[in-house]
């Protein structure tokens, strides 16, 4: 405020405030700043002074005004100050929750794909729950294999003692025969249990190898077991043939479902009718595995690395070897022969193609090729 004096012209007006405050002008950060009157007074500058003057810079638009500028009115509240952090934390919690839900439901590929069998095979990842599973599986029956296959019943805790092949071994001291196909290493040395491996779901547990190694040790006096062991350069390679090894070890339930050629044809036909373009090799194989595994549970042989392929040995059909099950492919020699020569019928998914080999046929026939470019 100014005081008016009548002393003389020079002293007519008196400024009763600190002029340094007056002239410091619009210093932000200070409240009740003394320069406000001066700053306000400039609103009344002569019009002609403003004629050709405009503000420097450009005004912000609604799009580029930050939320902080939009919201801040005076000192920011605790909520305004930390709301971005809260929002980020909330988003993280929601995202984690969704991932967990999708994992549980088996919808999230890469986490639970396991060809859609995550929920069914969850005990492969949690062998410590075998006891609980044993209780749950007391009423073992064929339906246990309708989805998820024989691999549901690998561990001692998981395979019902009432199953025919195991009825005579309730008190066995054998270690838990858990897991699906064991910890595998493919020809290129790639760890198949790597999280990045699309086939990891089929090789979810490292215990299978241990079980095979233990079986070899326990049957060291068995000529047939030694013969099997000798047929592999490394006993670990045996884990690559889970179904055959289960047969050799007399662990494969006789009611284990198998794929048939008709099943495969139906699956491929259905897939082709509902096909979508642009699928990658991994996606195609994952989709095929998901369908096949609903019946077979898992591939019989899996090669990862550059030559990604899955092999499913097919159920022998009438006229070829109808007494297949009775003959108990546990006959070591025939099983090994089947393994080596692939004289059993099988389908093989390699890349974007599915090959079929008939019983006793050493050649392969192209069953289906997926062309991602065809809509």
């Amino acid at each position: 405020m100014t005081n008016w004096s009548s002393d003389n012209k020079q002293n007519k007006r008196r400024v009763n405030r600190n002029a340094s405050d007056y002239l410091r002008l619009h210093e932000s950060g200070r409240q009740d700043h003394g320069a406000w009157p001066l700053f306000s007074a400039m609103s009344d500058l002569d019009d002609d002074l403003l004629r050709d003057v405009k503000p420097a810079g450009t005004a912000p638009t609604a799009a580029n005004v930050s939320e902080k500028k939009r919201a801040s009115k005076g000192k920011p509240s605790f909520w305004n100050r930390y709301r971005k952090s809260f929002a980020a934390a909330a988003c993280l919690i929601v995202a984690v929750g969704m991932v967990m839900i999708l994992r549980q439901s088996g919808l999230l590929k890469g986490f639970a794909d396991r060809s859609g069998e995550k929920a069914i095979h969850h005990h492969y990842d949690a062998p410590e729950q075998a006891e609980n599973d044993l209780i749950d599986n007391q009423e073992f029956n064929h339906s246990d294999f309708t989805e998820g296959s024989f691999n549901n019943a690998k561990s001692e805790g998981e395979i019902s003692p009432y199953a025919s092949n195991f009825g005579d071994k309730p008190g066995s001291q054998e270690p838990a025969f858990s897991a699906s196909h064991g910890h595998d290493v493919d020809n290129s040395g790639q760890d198949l249990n790597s999280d990045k491996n699309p086939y990891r779901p089929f090789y979810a547990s490292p215990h299978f190898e241990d079980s095979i190694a233990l079986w070899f040790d326990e049957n060291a006096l068995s000529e047939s077991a030694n013969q099997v062991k000798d047929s592999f350069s490394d006993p670990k390679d045996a884990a690559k043939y889970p179904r055959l090894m289960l047969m050799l070890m007399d662990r494969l339930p006789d009611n284990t479902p198998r794929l048939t050629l008709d099943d495969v044809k139906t699956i491929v036909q259905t897939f082709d009718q509902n096909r979508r373009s642009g699928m990658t090799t991994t996606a195609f194989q994952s989709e095929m595995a998901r369908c096949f595994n609903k019946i077979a549970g898992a591939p019989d042989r899996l090669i990862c690395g550059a030559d990604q392929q899955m092999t499913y040995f097919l159920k022998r059909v009438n006229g070829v070897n109808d007494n297949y099950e009775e003959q108990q492919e546990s006959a070591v020699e025939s099983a090994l022969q089947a393994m080596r020569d692939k004289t059993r019928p099988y389908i093989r998914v390699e890349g974007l193609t599915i090959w079929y080999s008939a019983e006793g046929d050493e050649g392969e026939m192209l069953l289906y090729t997926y062309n991602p470019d065809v809509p």
Partner: protein
Amino acid sequence: MAADFPPTDEHIIALYQQRSEEAIDATYQKYGGLLFQLAWNILENYEDAEECVNDTCLAAWNDAADVRPRSLKSWLCRIVRNEAIDRVRQRTSQKRGDGNVDVVLDELAFCLPSDEDTARKLEQQELASAISAYLREQPRNRRTIFLQRYYFASTTSDIAAEQGMTSEAVRQLLYRMRQELKEHLQSEGYRDDELEF
């Protein structure tokens, strides 16, 4: 009246005085950006700046019947500037306390402006005249820089960019001009016994 494009100041003023709502649109069209930038520079809040511009147009609408501004731009800038300053002061007032008494006083002030308010306006106009006199003596580029900083509240970096100078040079120039203004105000009779620059 046929609308010009862009509308001239005379045309807009005429629209205001005819009480035509096109005056508001024309004002936004021609001076909306300028008014918003001025409000933004003072308030630094998007919604407040928008409201400030809206209030300016409303005030212009209300005052246009009684006032025929010589310069529409200066008139609008004055209104928006005062609106923005009032808002900043209101914020400051709210931060001091719950502001209830201030609200009551504001309500009463509407009924009868105080002598102090009238005196303050006179003082303000006197001070503005003194500053205007000082600025008239300045070269155009110095005057522009001073007004951009202290009238439009632009940042020194924006001024420097527009004037082709460094920010430091702008600050130095503003410092010298403040010193000169201080001396000018002292010569106009404003008390100087506490001045320290």
